[in-house]
């Protein structure tokens, strides 16, 4: 009984800790900046739903949202396909320099973005991709590929080799085995990487702020930054922007979360 009460208290505290900021931003998103400056934590007296269409149409959020969606969805698709293929090869086939290749891909994780961004900037300028959405997409693929391969490789390595042998005996080629056997089995791990990559890239700010300058090419995090002026913050609109930005993340999470949990607990129970 005591342990249940203790668990309840811990879970309640953690929920307040995790959900508190979200609820706070959600309430601020339907309050004006004037109201917020009078009392930061008050419950909305008047629910200003009109702030959402204002942000969407008049503050260019429509464009930012679209840019973010194009860049992130394209990057996540490419990351998922290339990452899973690379992980399948590294986990499944014995070939010379297998581990060396894995190490080289993985070693990109250890460099902080502040270092790689300089070279990324130079490369994009040289190839005429600076200040373009395809350029930003390529950079996003490059920075997230090591983590994607790392997560997927460890999952693919746990798929019993007998399954591949059975598929070969059933007459399938290596390419077909990847699509028909490996990929469906690895779906929990792939869902994990999809959620992870989507959230990280959806919120990505540093590369976007350096590599994008045009107003029409800004992504959502840059759009939200627009409400931060030199002398004042439009806190109310920032909160509204944040709520707009959160919606796709919540949707993606809701759609893939069951698979995510399977991915995280895979192998824990036989």
């Amino acid at each position, binding site marked *: 009984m005591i342990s249940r009460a203790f668990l309840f208290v811990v879970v309640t505290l953690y929920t307040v800790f995790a959900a508190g900021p979200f609820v706070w931003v959600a309430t601020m998103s339907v309050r004006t900046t004037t109201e917020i400056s009078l009392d930061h934590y008050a419950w909305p007296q008047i629910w200003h739903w009109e702030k959402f269409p204002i942000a969407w149409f008049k503050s260019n959020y429509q464009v930012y949202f679209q840019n973010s969606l194009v860049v992130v969805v394209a990057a996540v698709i490419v990351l998922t396909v290339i990452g899973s293929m690379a992980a399948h090869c590294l986990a499944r086939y014995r070939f010379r320099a297998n581990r060396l290749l894995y190490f080289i891909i993985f070693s990109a994780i250890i460099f902080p973005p502040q270092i790689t961004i300089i070279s990324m900037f130079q490369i994009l300028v040289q190839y005429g991709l600076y200040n373009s959405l395809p350029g930003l997409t390529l950079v996003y693929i490059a920075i997230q590929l090591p983590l994607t391969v790392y997560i997927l490789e460890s999952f693919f390595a746990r798929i019993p080799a007998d*399954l591949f*042998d059975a*598929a070969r*005996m*059933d007459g*399938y080629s290596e390419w077909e085995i990847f699509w028909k*056997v490996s990929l*469906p089995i690895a779906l929990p791990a792939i869902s994990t990487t999809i959620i992870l990559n989507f959230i990280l890239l959806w919120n990505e700010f540093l590369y976007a702020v350096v590599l994008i300058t045009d107003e029409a090419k800004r992504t959502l995090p840059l759009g939200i930054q627009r409400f931060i002026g030199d002398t004042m913050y439009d806190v109310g609109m920032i909160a509204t922007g944040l709520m707009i930005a959160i919606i796709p993340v919540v949707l993606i999470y809701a759609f893939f979360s069951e698979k995510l949990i399977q991915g995280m607990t895979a192998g824990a129970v036989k």
Partner: protein
Amino acid sequence: MATVSLKDLCKRYPGGEALAVDSVNLDVAHGEFMVLLGPSGCGKSTTLRMVAGLESISSGYLAIDGKRMNEIAAKDRDIAMVFQSYALYPHMSVFDNLAFGLRRRDFSSSEIDKRVADVAATLGMAELLKRKPHALSGGQRQRVALGRAIVRDPKVFLFDEPLSNLDAALRVGMRGELIKLHHRLGATMIYVTHDQVEAMTMGDRICIMNGGKVVQIGSPLDVYREPADTFVAAFLGSPPTNLLPATFASGTLRIGDSTLALQRDCPQNVIFGIRPEDIRIEGVAPQVRGEVLAVEPLGAETIVRFRLPGVQSDVLARGPRTVSAKVGEQVPLAFDMASAHLFDPATAHRIAQERT
């Protein structure tokens, strides 16, 4: 049905010094049930995987129905294989698991439905077709794995220790079903196991392997009764053959401090091999006496462990359930010398019986 021929088949893994499979010669006849038997790491699974096309052949020659197969891909050999781990596709239903190989071979959907239904009925799993593998018991999974092989109607069936993940009772049942299946299909089957009971009960012939080499090939009773060397004598049979160092001089075999009359000629130093069932406890005309170290009643029979005077290793005898020997007693023993074997201590090979 098909014949399978292995000629000087060798496998060397990259970086490996010793051959994993060393000059294996084996001919499997049409419709024969051949068992590859041996301890872990003896090369039996590697040999099977080379026949399947899942391992490359380092040297030698493999033929199915007289046609060279060395360079032919696994999918084009028309072979089906049942794996120890079942290797069922976890994301597919039982129906899809069975149909997976047929779809690749461009069978019509009506033909696939018919074949899957036939196999499901044969193996008694018609009601399981919609289930996923994780919702099946071990025995049911084994059945699906078997069905996946049968449904393709291949030339040759390969089994890689298919029963070793099942519990003892289920294993006995599946063993019987596999024997019946072989009789009904009349197909050529190669079956790998380390379980001698499976080998003895299922195989038309047994190929015993050790250290990558074939040690002996023969019918189960032949290899049991006439083991080629001490390895086969010790490996086949439970409890195994008693192997005791002995010396021979003028018609008498001396084992420790005991002597036995031997009606044949042989070298001075030999290894004397006798199966536990060929030692009679408290029998008529006892030749030696031994001290009882342990008595293991198994219900139908009793295993008695002895120590012969002057012999380091224990001797096991299989007696009837009525054996009354007690631990510490000296009991008379009679050896059936006609069933005993002598082995050369240098080569471990059996010394041919030239009875005088």
